[in-house]
């Protein structure tokens, strides 16, 4: 069974209620849940050298390079991370492709730092109640943040992984700040 982002949010919202244990940071883990964009996976792997590694079930930050619908096992892994107060960075390909009449290349991120990073295969994300828009491309939301219990779910509609391969220092700073926010 595969889940859309919306159905996932409904399930994830109850997950934190299932746990109350203390949590401390353990680093990050890149998790391939059926990545549909090889450059995104490669970019995050390249960048992972700057990040403290961790096991999937102990990661403070779980990074999921560009995926479509997520299978049930993957969903459970995400829920566990959120339940223990971790951050899940989910690059989602589920959304409406953005077509710009006049091309503008930069996503304006407002969180965790204010930076401009080039778009990559962007899809527009529809904010659900409780979502905070943390990034937009020409006015269209492409990055959302949502508190899920003690955890944080960050969804990106514009792939960040490939940008690391191009060497954008702002992308590196953004990811670094995510690990300290």
């Amino acid at each position: 069974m595969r889940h859309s982002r919306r159905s996932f949010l409904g399930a994830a919202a109850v997950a934190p209620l299932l746990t109350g244990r203390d949590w401390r940071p353990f680093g990050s883990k890149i998790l391939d849940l059926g990545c549909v964009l090889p450059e995104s996976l490669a970019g995050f792997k390249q960048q992972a050298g700057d990040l403290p590694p961790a096991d999937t079930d102990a990661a403070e930050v779980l990074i999921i390079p560009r995926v479509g619908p997520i299978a049930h096992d993957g969903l459970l892994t995400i829920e566990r991370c959120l339940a223990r107060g971790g951050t899940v960075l989910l690059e989602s390909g589920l959304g409406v492709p953005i077509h710009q009449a006049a091309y503008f290349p930069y996503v304006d991120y407002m969180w965790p730092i204010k930076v401009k990073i080039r778009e990559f295969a962007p899809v527009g994300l529809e904010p659900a109640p409780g979502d905070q828009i943390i990034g937009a491309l020409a006015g269209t939301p492409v990055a959302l943040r949502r508190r899920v219990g003690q955890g944080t779910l960050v969804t990106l509609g514009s792939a960040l992984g490939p940008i690391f391969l191009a060497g954008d220092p702002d992308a590196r700073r953004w990811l670094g700040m995510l690990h300290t926010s």
Partner: protein
Amino acid sequence: MKKAFGDNLIPDGWSLEKGLDLIKKTGCDGVELWLGAKPWFQMTTTDAGIQELLRKVRDAGLVVSDVCNTLDWDENLSARDPKVQAAAIRHVERQIETARMLDTDAILVVAGLVTEEIPYNEVYARTKEKLQRLGETAAQAKVKIGCENCCSEQHFLISPREFWQFLNDVNHPHVGLHMDVGNIHDTGFPEQWIEINGPRITRVHVKDVLRHRGRCGQESVYTNLFLGNNNWPAIRAALDKAHYDGWIIAEMEAVYKYAPDQQFYDTAAAMDRFINGRM
């Protein structure tokens, strides 16, 4: 950001004072002075003449944004002839001297001209070596040398990565890029140049370019801001991304057949909208 005009756009026959007065009236903060372009600023202009030039700029309520030159096309650092090389070094040194006297901290040079007779690798090596030496002179004067990207005209450093690598090879903190967003015709996109070379940008020239014009689509034509093919919102955002907050300088050809002062007013208004991001 502050905005300026190059004094080379002042119509022929106008006095410096009249030109400066017009620049001030458009709401600009400064003027870019071109060594060799106008009677008031030549290699023969004495230090006293430079002081007088500065006084006139200040009397107009302006400051000098930077010092350019028109001489590089005839006397380039990459020339084979030692006499031409020496002349090129001399006029760049004079730019550095006068920049200090004019209370600014940047100069523009067109560094390197590739021709059929003087090949790319030779130009690269010679220009790099000359800039490393001139960088020391500039450092002592607390001035930065901005090498302008005149891609097509120079046949040199055509792409942003080439320029980035060239500046890496020069490896001098007082040698950077004087970015002209109108000079990139068919060799890329200015916002990408800004992203790649951002921290090394010393000044920014603005004009627009109409690509692929002419009967056979063989020409690129310079024009006023917002009339050409540049993606100005992207350029503005790229400058933000690069944390550039310095001078924006209109450097363009006189294209108004009548009322030449109108080009100044129109361009200044466009620069305001560019700076404020209202596009």
